[in-house]
C-alpha cells in the first residue's frame, strides 16, 4: 500500500518554516492517512537516533603550536620552565633511592652474606620520607605561585592585544573578557594542581614501597 502524497507531505513536514495553511493541510492529511503517519514516525525515529551522537574525544595533537611559534618566532620558554619542573618529583624519587642505596652495607663473613640498610632504623627512613613529602608540598606551592604569576601575565598580554586591535572596546566588554580569561585560568590552575598532586602522591607511594622492600630484605638477611 502506498499514498501518492507521502513524498510531498513529508518533504514539506521537514521544511524550516511552513505557511499556517500548508501546515494545517499537512496535519490534516497525517491525521487521516495511516501510511504517511507511519512513515513520518519512522523518519522521526531515525532522525532522533542520529541526534544521539555523543562527541568523541579528540586524539592528541599539537594544535599547530609548533607552526605558530616558528612563524611568530616566539621562544618555547613560555611553557618550558614548567616542562622541566614536571620531572622534579621523579628526580627526587631517584635521589631518595640513591640515599637508600648509599646507606646499604654488605658484609661477607664466611659463607653468609649480611645486608644492612644504613645504620639505621626505620625511624630515620620514616623521618626522611616525611621531610621529602613536606619538601614536595612546598615545591608544589611554589610552582603554583609561579604558574599563577605567568597566567596573570598572559591575561594582561591578551587584554593589551585586544585593546590594541579593537580601539572601540568598552570597559564592559573588557570586564567580560577578563572574567572569561580568569575562569580559564582557574580551570588550568586546578587541572595543574590535581595532576601535580597525583604525581607527588604516586612518587611518595613508590618510595614507601622501596622502604618496605628494604625492610623486608634487611629482615631476611638478619634472619640468615
Amino acid at each position, binding site marked *: 500500500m502506498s499514498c501518492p502524497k507521502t513524498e510531498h507531505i513529508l518533504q514539506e513536514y521537514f521544511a*524550516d518554516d511552513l505557511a499556517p495553511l500548508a501546515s494545517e493541510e499537512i496535519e490534516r492529511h497525517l491525521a487521516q492517512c495511516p501510511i504517511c503517519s507511519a512513515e513520518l514516525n519512522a523518519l522521526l525515529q531515525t532522525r532522533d537516533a542520529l541526534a544521539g551522537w555523543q*562527541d568523541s574525544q579528540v586524539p592528541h*595533537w599539537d594544535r599547530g603550536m609548533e607552526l605558530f611559534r616558528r612563524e611568530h618566532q*616566539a621562544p618555547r620558554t613560555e611553557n618550558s620552565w614548567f616542562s622541566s619542573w614536571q620531572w622534579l618529583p621523579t628526580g627526587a624519587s631517584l635521589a631518595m633511592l640513591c640515599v637508600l642505596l648509599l646507606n646499604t652495607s654488605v658484609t661477607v663473613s664466611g659463607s653468609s652474606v649480611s645486608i644492612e640498610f644504613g645504620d639505621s632504623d626505620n625511624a630515620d627512613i620514616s623521618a626522611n620520607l616525611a621531610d621529602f613529602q613536606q619538601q614536595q608540598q612546598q615545591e608544589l606551592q611554589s610552582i603554583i605561585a609561579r604558574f599563577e604569576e605567568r597566567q596573570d601575565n598572559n591575561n594582561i598580554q591578551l587584554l593589551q*592585544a585586544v585593546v590594541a586591535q579593537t580601539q572601540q572596546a568598552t570597559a564592559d566588554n573588557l570586564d567580560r573578557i577578563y572574567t572569561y580569561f580568569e575562569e580559564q585560568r582557574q580551570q588550568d590552575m586546578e587541572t595543574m594542581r590535581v595532576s601535580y598532586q597525583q604525581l607527588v602522591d604516586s612518587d611518595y607511594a613508590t618510595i614507601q614501597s622501596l622502604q618496605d622492600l628494604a625492610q623486608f630484605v634487611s629482615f631476611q638477611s638478619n634472619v640468615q
Partner: protein
Amino acid sequence: MSFIDEDEALIAAALNGSAFAWEKLVKRYESKIYNHGLRLMGNSSDAMDLMQEVFLGVYRNLHRFRGDAKFSSWIFRIAHNKAVDLNRRKRILATGGSSDDEGPDLDRYPDEHGDEPESRMQEQQQNGQILSMLTQLPFDQRLIVELKIYQSQTFEEIAEMQDISVNTAKTRFYTALRKLKTVSEETHVLP
C-alpha cells in the same frame, strides 16, 4: 556599543603573536570540527587530517576574518569546503573518480577505544552505529544530514553553502532520511 566576543578577543591576541590565545582558540573548536569530520569522513584518521587542514586554513587566513559573520560560521564553512576537497581527493585516489558511493573505511574507528570505561564504550558503540549508517549515504546526502541535523542549519543556508536550490536541499535531505531509515530497518542498528 560594540560587542567583542571571546573568539574575537582570542583572534586579536593570536594575530598579535600570542601562542596562548591561539591554543585557546583551537581548544574551543577542535572537538566540534573533529566530530564533524568523523561523521563526514567516517574514520578517525581522515577526521584528524581534515581537522588539521581546517586549523591550518584558519591560521593562514586569520587576518582576513573581519567579524562580519560569527567565527563559528566562518570555521564551519572552511571545514565544509575542506571536507568536500578531501572527499574528492580520496575518491580520485581510490577509484580514479568513478564511484560516488564509496563508503569510508570504518575499520579503525571502533577499535581505538579498547581501554575506555563502559559508559565511554557505549557512547562509542552508538557513534559507531550512526557512522555505519551515515557511510551508506553518498557524500552529498551525508553533507546535507550533517548540516541539517548536527549543525542545525536552515535549508536556505544549506542551499547557499552548497550552491543548490532550497528545493534540491529539501529533497536531498528527505531522500537521505528515507535511505537511513531503510538501512536502520535492514540492519536493526538503531533502537
